[in-house]
């Protein structure tokens, strides 16, 4: 029994104290009893006293314990309560810290009566003010508000503090430490005393500069749509039953073009622009593209609200979201009626010109045929006369003149025919031609004249051994130039001709130089390559050679320039793409 009580005593301090008191009192009682019994001799009373003491001590001990334990219970509940409150405060503080850290907002706490304002770290991290710079009064705050915003802002704020308005939030520009302004959204609430008077206001400033800038950027981008001269419309992603999806937006240019106002057309399918003259093939193409979710561009006649037709170039561009699903279609449309008109006019003109050209060509063929036919008879007949002996001298002379004139006429006509054929043949065949070979051919054709005048001819082709060109033309060009050089050589000096070919970038440059009598370019520059232009009164000069040369060079996509000085010589520079 005693052992058990001791265990219990250990458990509770109240019990412990009570027990110590009881034991000490008991020991006292026993010691007193022993002393008393030693000095007094009536033990029967003494036992009675002892019993009484023990009883008294036990009773007081019990009472003592009860009081103590009651007291302790009270203490425990108070303590528990305190602990709970403490924990709550701690938790709340932690929460606040987390929120303060997590939020990018700048939080301020304004004790209105004392006009003392407290800022959290945001004032430093976001606006760049260090703790020393931050003022302690609301004046500092108001001073930092952009002058254009401050009046409006303070009116709203004070009407809130005076509780004329329920809520307070405002956007204004707040000055940073570096002097720039940030757009902020400020939201706050009031703390009131028992009388309902505002004593404290706590607010959070959010930096919305980015949003504002984005908003302004979007506004700017939006002007592209609203101010564009091209019609822009946006439709839904999908359509029912093979139609162009419903319109969700049209820009003002569209209304201008089609006559439909925004509210008249939204929710309808662009199919309503279709009309009797619309190109159904083009519309099929468009519907197919919509089905396949592909970009598409068509041109068709379409109709305004008043059923007036106009040509439109119409594009549909699918817009996809991040998941790759189609969300909208954007359509850009342009009235191309004028363009189409011009195009049709142009086509008409080209057709007319082509026909005219064809007619003229045919005319030149027929004319040349009709000239050549009797001329060939004349030549044939003259050929026959050659074999007949003629006794009459005068007749012989007449026939000789007749013969010469006929052949001259024939040459002229043949040259003209050449011109016609060159002009008619813009896509003549080109091949790899060896310049050396070309010159051999040309020299052999002119062997008689070369033998007669023995010119000094210098050739330098090693840089451009091969030329991609038309063989017949290049031969004709060089033949004409060489013939000219021989024909118009100076009588005072030996004829020297130098011909060089050079490759410059992707061009072959052929230089043909002689020391002949030259041409007065001052007077004749414009006429030099003209048809039937003659600069020297030579009997066999027809004024055709250089005209042919130029025509042939240009037909092959080349250019020719001349440099000449009277009595010094002439240089032709021919450039071909090679």
């Amino acid at each position: 029994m005693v052992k058990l009580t001791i265990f219990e005593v250990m458990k509770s301090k109240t019990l412990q104290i009570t027990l110590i008191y009881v034991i000490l009192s008991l020991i006292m009682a026993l010691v007193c009893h022993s002393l008393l019994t030693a000095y007094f001799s009536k033990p029967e009373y003494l036992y009675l006293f002892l019993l009484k003491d023990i009883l008294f001590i036990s009773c007081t001990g019990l009472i003592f314990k009860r009081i103590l334990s009651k007291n302790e219970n009270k203490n425990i509940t108070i303590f528990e309560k305190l602990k709970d409150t403490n924990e709550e405060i701690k938790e709340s503080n932690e929460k606040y810290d987390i929120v303060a850290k997590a939020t990018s907002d700048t939080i301020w706490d304004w004790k209105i009566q004392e006009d003392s304002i407290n800022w959290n770290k945001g004032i430093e991290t976001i606006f760049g003010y260090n703790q020393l710079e931050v003022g302690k009064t609301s004046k500092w705050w108001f001073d930092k508000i952009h002058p254009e915003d401050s009046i409006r802002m303070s009116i709203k704020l004070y009407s809130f503090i005076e509780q004329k308005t329920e809520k307070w939030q405002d956007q204004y520009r707040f000055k940073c430490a570096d002097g720039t302004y940030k757009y902020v959204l400020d939201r706050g609430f009031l703390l009131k005393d028992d009388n309902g008077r505002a004593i404290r206001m706590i607010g959070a400033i959010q930096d919305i500069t980015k949003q504002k800038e984005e908003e302004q950027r979007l506004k700017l981008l939006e002007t592209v749509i609203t101010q564009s001269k091209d019609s822009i419309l946006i439709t839904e992603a999908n359509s029912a039953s093979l139609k162009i999806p419903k319109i969700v937006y049209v820009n003002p240019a569209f209304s201008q073009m089609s006559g439909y106002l925004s509210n008249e057309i939204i929710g309808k399918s662009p199919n309503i622009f279709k009309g009797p003259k619309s190109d159904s093939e083009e519309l099929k193409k468009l519907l197919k593209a919509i089905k396949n979710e592909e970009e598409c561009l068509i041109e068709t006649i379409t109709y305004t609200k008043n059923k007036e037709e106009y040509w439109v170039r119409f594009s549909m561009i699918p817009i996809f979201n991040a998941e790759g699903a189609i969300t909208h279609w954007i359509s850009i449309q342009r009235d191309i009626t004028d363009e189409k008109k011009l195009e049709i006019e142009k086509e008409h003109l080209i057709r007319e010109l082509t026909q005219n050209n064809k007619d003229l060509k045919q005319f030149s063929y027929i004319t040349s045929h009709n000239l050549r036919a009797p001329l060939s008879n004349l030549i044939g007949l003259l050929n026959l006369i050659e074999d007949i002996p003629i006794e009459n001298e005068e007749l012989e002379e007449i026939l000789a003149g007749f013969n010469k004139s006929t052949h001259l006429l024939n040459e002229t006509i043949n040259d003209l025919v050449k011109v016609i054929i060159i002009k008619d043949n813009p896509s003549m065949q080109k091949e790899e031609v060896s310049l050396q070979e070309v010159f051999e051919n040309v020299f052999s054709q002119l062997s008689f004249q070369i033998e007669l005048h023995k010119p000094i001819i210098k050739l330098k082709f090693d840089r451009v051994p091969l030329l991609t060109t038309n063989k017949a033309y290049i031969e004709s060009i060089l033949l004409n130039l060489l013939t000219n050089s021989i024909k118009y050589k100076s009588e005072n000096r030996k004829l020297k001709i130098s011909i060089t070919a050079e490759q410059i970038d992707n061009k072959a440059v052929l230089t043909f130089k002689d020391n002949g009598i030259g041409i007065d370019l001052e007077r004749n520059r414009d006429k030099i390559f003209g048809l039937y232009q003659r600069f020297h009164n030579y009997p066999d000069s027809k004024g055709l050679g250089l005209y042919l040369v130029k025509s042939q060079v240009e037909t092959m996509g080349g250019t020719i320039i001349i440099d000449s000085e009277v009595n010094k010589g002439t240089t032709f520079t021919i450039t071909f793409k090679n």
Partner: protein
Amino acid sequence: MLEQILCIDDDPITLMLCKKVIAKSEFSKEVITAQNGEEALHHFNNLKYTNNNKAKTSKKPELIFLDLNMPVMGGWEFLDHFTSPDYTEFNNANVIVLSSTIDPDDLAKAKKYPIIIDFLSKPITQPMLEYLKKKINV
């Protein structure tokens, strides 16, 4: 020397020239002429008719000099008829186009007719006939 050749041309002077030059070069014994395609076809029709009725067959041209631009029926139309099955017995003759044309289309067209063995420019000359002699092995 060829036995007979046919010259088709609307120009009598060309025909006269042909006859004289051919005679001179001893190119053919006989030269017959027609003023246009239709006349030439008429000649062939007559030949066909007489050959069918008589035991003895008449001569048929071995070579034809053909002009292109002629009234009534031009050279191309003539060739289209002449190369048809109606003229099978005659169209083994060679045709030489003898023309003053410079139209490149004519030259290109001539290449499409296998019956045309050459395309020559007027006037007919003795060297031309010498060249043809070699070409057709006369």
